[in-house]
């Protein structure tokens, strides 16, 4: 009996150790054949499962874009729904390869938590939503003193909320939940007067309420919430692949490359387009990055360019109908700007 026990223990230890050999995330991902992508437990427009259980939204599509860049196939990605609490450990421990879960980029998360944010896929800011039917006459967040505020715990939102009310010398009563759907349910049931989260989220959440028309998003934006995907520290190659996937999405939009015209564009005379699409002779842009040279073609074929991705998931093509605003390209007065691919 004891020998068996020792044997099993030894075997288990060895088994676990053996699978721990590889170091590079790209090699790991290639070996297992898919990318493990951490997403939210359900936020319309960013990452939410549809009726068939397929994940939809900007964050989910971003992971598909990375899969397209690595494998040339956007379907080689698996999604792990994570609560706000679990998201960082999941990435740190290697359970997921990319955290693409409407996560705010802060210095603390870059340094103390050991993450590397690759950029900002969505510029957001924290806002407030109220039920205008129940609270007529409230049209500014500065009138909210004394209100009960629903908020998700463990987020930057929770911290901004405290700061905002404190700096404006207002009182409030926080009603805190672990998961987004719990916050939604509590707000919809009237447990609190105000719902606060990133403004994009508020628009998405409003759709899921029983009577969306009754609710208004107040004009104040109380914080900067640059949302972006993050990877682990210490693997520059993987960091670059994910980062440049994001830039490729922007570059494609800037150059007018879309899902529909990407094949025609390959034959374009424009040297910049040829270079980005890997049609230049003897190009090494893709292989230097660690992927194939037609990586941008694969990305755009799978999810379209950044503009298409935006409009499809949160913009005019979606029920959320959020305007591009500061998420427009720099050429159109927005903040989205990609360094040159050359």
């Amino acid at each position, binding site marked *: 009996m*004891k020998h068996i026990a*020792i044997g099993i*223990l030894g075997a288990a*230890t060895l088994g676990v150790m053996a699978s721990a050999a590889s170091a590079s995330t790209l090699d790991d991902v290639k070996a297992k054949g898919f990318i493990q992508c951490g997403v939210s437990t359900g936020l319309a427009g960013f990452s939410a499962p549809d009726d068939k259980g397929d994940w939809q939204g900007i964050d989910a599509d971003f992971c598909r874009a990375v899969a397209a860049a690595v494998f040339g196939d956007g379907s080689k990605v698996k999604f792990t729904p994570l609560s*706000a*609490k679990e998201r*960082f*450990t999941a990435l*740190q*421990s290697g359970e997921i390869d990319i955290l693409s879960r409407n996560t705010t980029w802060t210095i*603390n*998360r870059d*340094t*103390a*938590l*050991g993450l590397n944010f690759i950029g900002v896929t969505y510029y957001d800011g924290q806002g407030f939503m109220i039920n205008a039917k*129940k*609270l007529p006459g409230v049209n500014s967040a500065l*009138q*909210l*003193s*004394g*209100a*009960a505020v629903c908020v998700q*715990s*463990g987020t930057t939102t*929770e*911290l901004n*909320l*405290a*700061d905002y009310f*404190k700096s404006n010398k207002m009182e*409030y*009563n*926080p*009603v*805190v*939940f*672990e998961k987004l759907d*719990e916050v939604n*349910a*509590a707000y919809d*049931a*009237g*447990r609190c*007067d105000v719902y606060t989260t990133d403004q994009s989220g508020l628009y998405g959440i409003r759709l899921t309420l029983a009577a969306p028309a009754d609710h208004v998003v107040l004009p104040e934006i109380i914080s900067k919430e640059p949302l972006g995907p993050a990877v*682990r*520290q*210490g693997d520059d190659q993987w960091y670059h692949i994910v980062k440049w996937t994001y830039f490729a999405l922007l570059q494609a939009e800037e150059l007018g490359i879309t899902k529909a015209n990407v094949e025609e564009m390959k034959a374009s005379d424009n040297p910049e387009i040829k270079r980005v699409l890997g049609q230049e002779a003897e190009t090494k842009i893709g292989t230097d990055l660690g992927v194939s040279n037609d990586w941008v073609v694969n990305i755009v074929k799978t999810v379209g360019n950044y503009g298409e991705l935006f409009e499809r998931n949160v913009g005019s093509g979606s029920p959320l109908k959020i305007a591009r605003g500061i998420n427009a390209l720099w050429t159109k007065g927005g903040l989205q700007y990609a360094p040159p691919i050359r």
Partner: protein
Amino acid sequence: MASQEILREEPSRGSFVNDPKVRSLFFQAVVVVLLVAGVWWIAQNVIANLTRLHIASGFGFLKGRAGFDISESAIAYSSDSTYGRAILVGFINTVIVAVVGIITATIIGFIVGIGRLSQNWLIRKICTVYVEVFRNIPPLLVIFFWYSGVLAVLPPPRDSINLPFGSFLNQRGFYFPSAVWGDGSWLIFVALLVGIAMAWFVARKAHQRQMATGQQFPVFWTSAALIVGLPLLAYALSGFPLSFDYPKQSTFNLTGGFQVSPEFLSLYLALSCYTAAFIAEIVRAGIRGVSKGQTEAAAALGLRSGSILRLVVVPQAMRIVIPPLTSQYLNLTKNSSLAIAIGYPDLTATAGTVLNQTGQAVEGVLIMMAVYLILSLVTSAVMNVVNARMALVER
């Protein structure tokens, strides 16, 4: 073969390998080696992971500014307080809900448990249904039921249900007037303390006298008069310093008075209802464990049925009841961690938020485990003292 071996004059212990002592030593050595190796391996991994991921470690983060607010706190707390204080707030909230829950669950449990042994068919059946329903569903479900099924569908603050004494019930919780103590009200508390002390003294004297002479003294009524009467007297003497702050309607909520949040209410009600079902079974088993002869003997001595229950049955039943009761109290305390599901800021919830805001996963979970362990140990220690006092004193 075997019998021949036994018959040998000098029973050899067989080979060295079969010596029980050697085997025991060997086995323990193996366990120790494996354990040390395992711990070392884990420690190495943790250190490697933390340095690789550039995660700060240590408990220094507890002194940092928390930055988030907590909805209910028994001690002064704001977003400027430290993480350590946030965890302390959570701990106190856990203790509050556990203590209040334990008291209520014990009361309901005793009533239902005695009800199950009642002569009355209807009462017996009602109590049985209660026990069988609550024992067989998860506590989390009971909490959700109170929270989403009952309290969330109460009217909004504007249409609060008016209850007697200026209290209100709505989906934001239960509001009742809070007492405002004026000048000189310290006298009332002093009077209360004096009353309790005197009542205890009287009870002791009366007991001694009864032991010595057999004469009885109406302890209950004297104590009640002392404990209630003295503070009332002080209240009148100090010029009625007590006033009440009534909850009033304001823009968003009722303000003023004392507010009990629906999160606390549902957790408290659910834990009490759920644990009471188990306590009822324990009480029933305890009372049934007292043999019928005891009751009959007491009746033969001429005791009335109330006295039989109070003086003969219950003290003996308590001996059977207390050990399992202790574990139910522990369960209730541990189940209070389910608060996290409905957003009551107990220890698990605040420590979880701290864990998440700082990223100190290892330290956060360690603190949680240590605090619950200590709580459990303290509860069992207290109950052990009670148990020792109740235990059968034998010659």
